[in-house]
């Protein structure tokens, strides 16, 4: 029938030559590495050097770790150190390697109702936000950023669970969606510097608090354990990890700029 013919014609027309046959690995990573443009900037060099295509699935750290546990990925690149170490300790990953770090920043509206601008003490700033009942937008998704944020709240002694729905808004979404919400609500948001730098919808928001050592945000890379998941391409995965933590990868990370500013800092130790 004619309808079926139509589908067939459309399908054939739409057959893209995207059927890449070459070797590839699957990288479970976080939105910050993708949204900032870092991976787009550094991966072509690795792919050109090795012929191994890196396919990136960018989700929150929590989801990336769970996907990797199920074997849906060869390499994990995330930022939640305690969760990463637990992942390796449980046998899901081979070993954790430092890759780079950046830092979290507290962004907020220019009128700054909690008066935290210019501060360098993240815990004090959060306590001030809570005291002012000023709106705060949280990821609320067990991502690396969310876990870091909860650790800071724990230090303030503020019970954010009790404030949820009031001044404390859990979006349950990715960094970008939470920033969009935060800008819309004139709310404070804790974000990583790279995502913020590359974010295109800043509205009137600016960085208000930065530089607190507690805002340190390290990224680790882990090979998914082929003993647990035999289909993992350990050779290609390890090649990627070696490159990323080696001189070329580290230099590529250091060279990456968003609007002229460095947002990731290589941290792999000499191997």
């Amino acid at each position, binding site marked *: 029938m004619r309808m079926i013919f139509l589908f067939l014609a459309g399908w054939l027309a739409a057959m893209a030559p995207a059927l*890449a046959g070459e070797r590839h690995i699957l990288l479970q990573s976080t939105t910050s590495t993708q949204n900032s443009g870092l991976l787009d900037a550094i991966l072509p060099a690795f792919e050109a050097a090795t012929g191994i295509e890196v*396919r990136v699935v960018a989700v929150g750290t929590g989801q990336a770790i769970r996907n990797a546990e199920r*074997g849906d990925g060869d390499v994990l690149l995330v930022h939640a150190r305690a969760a990463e170490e637990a992942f390796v300790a449980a046998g899901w990953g081979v070993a954790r390697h430092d890759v780079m770090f950046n830092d979290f920043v507290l962004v907020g509206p220019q009128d700054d109702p909690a008066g935290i601008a210019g501060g360098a003490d993240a815990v004090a700033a959060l306590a001030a936000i809570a005291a002012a009942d000023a709106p705060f937008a949280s990821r609320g998704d067990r991502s690396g950023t969310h876990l870091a944020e909860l650790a800071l709240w724990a230090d303030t002694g503020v019970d954010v669970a009790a404030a949820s729905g009031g001044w404390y808004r859990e979006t349950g979404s990715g960094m970008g*969606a939470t920033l969009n919400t935060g800008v819309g609500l004139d709310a404070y948001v804790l974000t990583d510097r790279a995502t913020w730098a590359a*974010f*295109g919808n800043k509205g009137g928001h600016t960085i208000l608090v930065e530089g607190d050592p507690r805002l340190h945000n390290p990224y680790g890379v882990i090979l998914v354990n082929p003993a647990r998941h035999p289909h993992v391409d350990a050779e290609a995965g390890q090649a990627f990890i070696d490159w990323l933590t080696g001189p070329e990868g580290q230099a590529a990370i250091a060279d990456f700029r968003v609007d002229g500013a460095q947002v990731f800092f290589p941290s792999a130790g000499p191997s």
Partner: protein
Amino acid sequence: MTGFGETLGQALWLILSGDADLWAIILLSLRVSLTALAIATLIGLPLGAALAVGRFPGRRTVITIVSAMMGLPPVVVGLAVYLMLSASGPFGIFDLLYTPAAMIIAQVVLVTPIVAALSRQVIADLHTDLAEQLDSFGLRPLARIPTLLWEGRTSLMTVVLAGFGRAIAEVGAVIIVGGNINHVTRVMTTAIALETSKGNLTLALALGTVLITMAIAINALVGVLGARARSGVPAHA
């Protein structure tokens, strides 16, 4: 946010500039959704017709379930398909997760109930008018299905377009099972989601405009073919 005019301008520029990445994304969207639609139609139309004319125990229950499944949340479907196709899932050995095939599977699950439930209604109404005449020609209920499908072709075309709309516009399922991998599984909707999360709202809206333009083009194409099918002598044997 910037004005709507600027968005439209950017959308136009995106289309006209022939950006290779954008075209790859558009073609992948079409390939995934049209394939899913073809499969869903091949399953859904006969199923809908069988539910319309068949008489068997449990028929009402099946109809209720199929109708309810029209409202399946894409995220739930995506999650279910993900768990099936995951390396640790029952179909993990096929290595389909994060491929266009996985996205097609998820969209088939989403679209088939729409095609089946809506076509059942179309065919049932048609059957009310034609049942005696077809019975008179010695056609038993299930044997009437090809005739009914052809008789209802105009309305069924709309049904199929509704299914296409669901498939092409859906993001919740394909982003989970496809992973929004650049050059591999990135389609229009996941690209829009990505640009939104980057805060590039103008670009996201421009991509959305491209998506809508695409949908209009497909609908117009089907409309033209449909008009031709109505006016001409059908080739149906």
